[in-house]
């Protein structure tokens, strides 16, 4: 369980990035933090493992106040995959990079080997095991960053803008990974402004603007509210916009998957 209680955060340059966040995320939830560039999404994510600590209020991870523990001890529970993976690599090979955190957590070599293999196979990186992380393409680096976190299997996994610069195939893979992690009971938190990706995932959405939570609800409810989305510099997913204009054939506005919407339209044509 994650609890933000009236959390405020001010960067050293005086910018108030979080301005009174109250938020509760239960175990096993998928939550998308959405909002425009600069809304405070990344700052919020950095509070999950204590990288940043509240200036006011507090963040509780399973009842533990992040101000009272080290990032290292929180990291076992919370894994964060950052937007720019270059910032986190330093090993000579992909294999070593994934193994590093596991060794730090004190697992013995056999467990390390098994977990590293699983993680890099799962993220389609087996062919790169001996390569330097810095020779990978942007998309491969993102997959490596995720493999590192998967290997130590924390209960809470946060992904900061995971779809930026990713093609459709990589996004589909990511969607599968998120669903799989969730089916294992993990809590997944995603910051994103990629409305089409989030529409496929249909999670709970927490909408942020200027450091505050302005809405919190299920994906359909939030995406149907175009005025609210636009006030946060977001646009509705295309099929919401389409379904809103199909009342002339009796279709109600909803967050349809493409296949379902196609079937709905065709039944009306057959009649």
């Amino acid at each position, binding site marked *: 369980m994650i609890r933000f209680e009236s959390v405020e955060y001010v960067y050293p340059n005086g910018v108030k990035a979080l301005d009174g966040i109250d938020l509760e995320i239960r175990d096993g939830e998928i939550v998308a933090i959405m*909002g*425009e*560039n*600069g809304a405070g999404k990344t700052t919020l994510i950095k509070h999950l493992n204590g990288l940043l600590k509240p200036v006011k209020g507090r963040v509780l991870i399973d009842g533990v106040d992040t101000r009272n523990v080290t990032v290292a001890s929180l990291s076992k529970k919370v894994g964060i995959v950052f937007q720019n993976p270059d910032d986190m690599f330093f090993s000579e090979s992909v294999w070593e990079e994934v193994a590093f955190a596991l060794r730090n957590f004190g697992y013995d070599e056999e467990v390390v080997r098994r977990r590293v293999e699983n993680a890099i196979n799962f993220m389609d990186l087996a062919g790169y095991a001996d390569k330097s992380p810095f020779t990978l*393409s*942007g*998309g491969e680096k993102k997959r490596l960053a995720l493999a590192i976190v998967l290997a130590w299997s924390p209960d809470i996994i946060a992904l900061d*803008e995971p779809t*930026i*610069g*990713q*093609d*459709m*195939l*990589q*996004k589909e893979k990511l969607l599968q990974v998120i669903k799989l992690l969730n089916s294992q009971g993990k809590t997944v938190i995603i910051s994103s*402004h990629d*409305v*089409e990706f989030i529409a496929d995932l249909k999670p709970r959405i927490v909408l942020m603007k200027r450091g505050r939570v302005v809405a919190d609800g299920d994906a359909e409810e939030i995406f149907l509210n175009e005025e609210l989305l*636009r006030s946060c*510099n*977001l*646009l509705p*997913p*295309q*099929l919401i*916009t*389409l379904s809103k*204009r*199909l009342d*002339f*054939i009796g279709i109600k506005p909803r967050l349809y998957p*493409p*296949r379902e*919407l*196609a*079937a709905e*339209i*065709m039944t009306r*044509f*057959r009649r």
Partner: protein
Amino acid sequence: MKIIKVKDLGFKYAGTDFYAIRGVNLEIDEGEFVVLAGKSGCGKTTLLRCLNGLIPHFYEGEFEGRVLIDGVDTRECPPHILSQKAGMVFQNPDNQLFALSVEADIAFPLENLGLPREEIRDRVEWALKLLGIEELRKRSPFELSAGQKQKVAIASVLAMKPKILLLDEPTSSLDPVSAKNLIDAIIDLNRRHGLTILISEHRLTHLIPHADKLAIMDGGRIIYFDDPRRILKEDVLMYGISIPRVVEVAREMRRIGGCIPFRDIPLSVEEFISGLKGALR
């Protein structure tokens, strides 16, 4: 007139053991709006670098074939001359901006060209107006939003008065409203000012209805180069392209119904609705 001519182009970066692109042939008419798509690593960025001369002048490697930009062979023309024919905007505007004010940033390359002061002033003015960012002129580029920065980056490229604008995933880090504003500005440059546009993107929803041509790359080659309506009739999902959702729905309707009430695949919500209404009449 073909403003871009690419013949049997191939390039292998120094230190790598494979060709990033190979056997690429491409001809683009002056004033065309071309969208370049394909999965990560398919060669889009390498192709764009070849078109503005960064390859072979800046990146080392093995170059084969020929690229003619506005009739000039890129191998024989220095990059600073080429940049007055084909300007390039990158994914991350921070890499392109450095001056203390927006105006100074746009003026900098012009000063490098040794243009007279009045000419520089006129061009800066023209470029600011073209992108609708006159009110940002005195601001520091670094305090702007990501979308505004990208517009400044485009303005500074346009001030060189190129005929061709090359854009490499310019909206990928922008939120949806900023991305759409930027794309609207780019479409406007094409429609009203006749600029030839070649833009690589993953998110095609707002771009594709305006594209004259869609080029799909895979494994360093161009697999398709045609009117997007024709290409999207086929199944191109394996090339990692996120096609507009309305296209997915229309294709699915055709699959389950045998036929669809559309003559053309609709590329936007507008086209979808008007196609459907036409069929009901």
